[in-house]
């Protein structure tokens, strides 16, 4: 039987169907008109029309973060592709599997400086896992197959497929390959058993052990395995910003987030431990601060990661285990159970007492006399009102840190934020991706008045697709984190960090057809949140504009370049 002869555009659509894609986030334009025409004539997936290509990629990225599936974005050539770059770089830094299909000018026009031409493959090369320019209609199917395979396997990441317009009009047989094999790409899955045994030996003999896990645990669907292993060991554990939810925050072994704005106990335990188990984390500058200072306290480090290049990149590792974190953790669990050893509890009892003393610092407490809205309190109330079970997206800045600190996550894939690139503007499109993936779940976007304005146009998309996201705007009339650094390190010279000429967010929300609320009193926080999440407003997007204390800062804080244990606590801040 011969295969059906169809156009390149139709092939692209069929490929997405074969990959079980449910949503394509995109924006049409000249170079992708053939593809859009094919989309118009299909019913297997829904196209979500965003208002800016950056948001298309962010929404596809969030869809992937929330579900674990590959997200898909579709943009046109030239400005469509360049607008997408911020989204692609954001996904790349956090290793999120997405496929971006971009239109390109016709092959004969490439290199002629044609209308809406840019070298998309060249521009995106440093911020994708891989990219392709398809030059023959016969290659579309195999290339898209490869793109999905590369995006989702190994260390995941964005893969871009650039398709010239003439290629989408040409016709050929549609044959979707069943398998992909690339001689140059064979990610390791199983960890080395010798290394696993060495690691276990180190762990069970540790006196001051610590577990530190990152986004790799969430991406690798390894949180059950991690939770089981940590419970078996009885060790304390911390999560990075990207790893929150990888271990249940309500568990007694959890010390909170670590890093620049981590808890006192997590950072001290990281610094002072004698054996550190790092799982799917990469020792980045915001997490361990100054690496020399970090290593000044002697410790043995075990590092489990799927990416060999992550190992010994910033910190020399004693026992590297390259492999899929879930499989490696499962092997560790079996090996541990085979030992039938329960003696670790005795060895570490002094260590646990020390940690308890650190906890008594109560580093997360904040002053609240009820006269102004404290942003931390808003997050705490959000946690209460949503029973700790909402999808929380955030933008970037102080509000992001407060959300990470004061909304304890018990499940993975509930905390959706831009950790690596730190992209302001992701919050609202991230909420769209989550809400589309889970239409019946509560989705809140924690943001600030600066970040939200970077993708505010997506309020329109939310209206069109009836996305009842709750926007929690912590409005302090400052770019809060910039202001905080200027206060601490630049002698209170607040250069350009003041948000003047703010819109009336209530009216703005209303003009898009949404519900707006302005909350100015601390006593109204809970009521407003309850109303926003009430059955009455279940179907509506609600923009909650909380007018917060302008001078509130995020504590604890490890200043840039400082050691992890050199924290500024809220109590010390007055001495600065």
């Amino acid at each position, binding site marked *: 039987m011969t295969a059906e002869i169809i156009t390149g555009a139709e092939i692209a659509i069929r490929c997405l169907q074969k990959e079980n894609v449910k949503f394509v986030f995109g924006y049409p334009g000249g170079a992708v008109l053939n593809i859009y025409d094919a989309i118009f004539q299909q019913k297997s997936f829904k196209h979500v029309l965003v208002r800016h290509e950056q948001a298309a990629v962010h929404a596809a990225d969030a869809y992937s973060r929330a579900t674990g599936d590959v997200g898909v974005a579709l943009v046109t050539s030239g400005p469509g592709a360049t607008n997408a770059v911020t989204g692609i770089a954001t996904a790349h830094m956090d290793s999120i599997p997405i496929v971006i299909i971009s239109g390109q000018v016709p092959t004969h026009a490439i290199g002629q400086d044609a209308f809406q031409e840019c070298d998309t493959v*060249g521009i995106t090369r440093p911020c994708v896992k891989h990219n392709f320019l398809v030059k023959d209609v016969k290659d579309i199917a195999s290339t898209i197959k490869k793109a999905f395979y590369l995006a989702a396997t190994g260390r995941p990441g964005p893969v871009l497929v650039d398709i010239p317009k003439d290629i989408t009009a040409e016709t050929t047989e549609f044959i979707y390959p069943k398998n992909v094999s690339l001689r140059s790409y064979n990610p390791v899955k199983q960890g080395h058993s010798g290394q696993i045994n060495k690691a276990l030996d180190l762990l069970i003999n540790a006196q001051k052990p610590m577990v530190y896990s990152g986004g790799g645990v969430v991406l690798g669907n390894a949180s059950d395995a991690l939770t089981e292993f940590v419970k078996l060991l009885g060790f304390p554990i911390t999560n990075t910003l990207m790893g929150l939810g990888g271990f249940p925050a309500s568990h007694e072994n959890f010390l909170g987030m670590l890093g620049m704005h981590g808890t006192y106990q997590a950072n001290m335990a990281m610094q002072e431990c004698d054996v550190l188990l790092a799982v799917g984390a990469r020792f980045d500058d915001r997490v361990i601060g100054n690496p020399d200072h970090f290593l000044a306290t002697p410790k043995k480090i075990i590092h489990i990661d799927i990416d060999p290049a992550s190992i010994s990149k910033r910190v020399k590792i004693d026992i590297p285990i390259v492999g899929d974190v879930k499989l490696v953790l499962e092997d560790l669990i079996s090996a541990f159970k085979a030992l039938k050893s329960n003696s670790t509890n005795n060895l570490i009892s002094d260590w646990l007492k020390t940690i308890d003393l650190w906890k008594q610092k109560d580093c997360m407490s904040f002053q609240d006399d009820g006269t102004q809205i404290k942003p931390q309190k808003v997050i705490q109330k959000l946690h209460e009102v949503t029973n700790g079970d909402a999808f929380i997206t955030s933008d970037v800045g102080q509000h992001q840190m407060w959300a990470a600190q004061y909304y304890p996550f018990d499940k993975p894939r509930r905390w959706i934020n831009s950790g690596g690139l730190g992209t302001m503007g992701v919050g609202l499109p991230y909420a769209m991706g989550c809400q589309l993936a889970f239409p019946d779940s509560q989705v809140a976007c924690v943001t600030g008045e600066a970040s939200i304005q970077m993708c505010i146009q997506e309020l329109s998309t939310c209206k069109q697709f009836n996305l009842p996201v709750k926007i929690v705007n912590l409005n302090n009339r400052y770019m809060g984190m910039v202001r905080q650094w200027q206060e601490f390190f630049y002698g209170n010279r607040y250069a350009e960090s003041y948000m003047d000429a703010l819109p009336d967010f209530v009216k703005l929300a209303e003009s898009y057809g949404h519900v707006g609320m302005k909350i100015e009193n601390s006593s109204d926080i809970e009521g407003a949140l309850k109303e926003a999440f009430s059955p009455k407003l279940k179907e509506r997007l609600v923009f909650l504009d909380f007018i917060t204390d302008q001078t509130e800062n995020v504590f604890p804080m490890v200043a840039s370049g400082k050691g992890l244990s050199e924290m500024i606590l809220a109590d010390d801040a007055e001495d600065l």
Partner: protein
Amino acid sequence: MRHIISLLMENEAGALSRVSGLFSARGYNIESLSVAPTEDQSLSRMTIVTSGSDQIIEQIIKQLNKLIDVVKVLDLHDGDHIERELVLVKVKANKQYRDEVQQLSNSYGGRIIDSSENILTIEFTGTSTELDNYLKSLNNSFVVEIVRTGASGIGRGDRILKI
């Protein structure tokens, strides 16, 4: 420490820029880079001369391996290897200097591959250090043009980079 890294990669458009882009994006040194197709039409072989601490070189190798188009990477520095580089030198060779240049080339093993009334072009092959020494021996004021290819390398004996 100077290292010479050999790699095989898919012979595809853009593969070279993925490698050169990696070096510039991550701030790695690149002393020379040469690339050409191999006996297998689908593969190119690249030789990169770079320098850095052991930790940096380890990262370079890992990052190169991470590129999807890169099939195999070998740090030739890890074992016995042979290294060769070619230089073409054009010198002003008037009557007075001509004999000296010819003698010098002969003694170093260079070959005169083109000569005109006032110009001699010499081809010289050797290790990069040998090239340096040879070029130093020439009177700078007579040198008109120098073209170096960058080093190529190959393992000794049965040390083979092949898929």
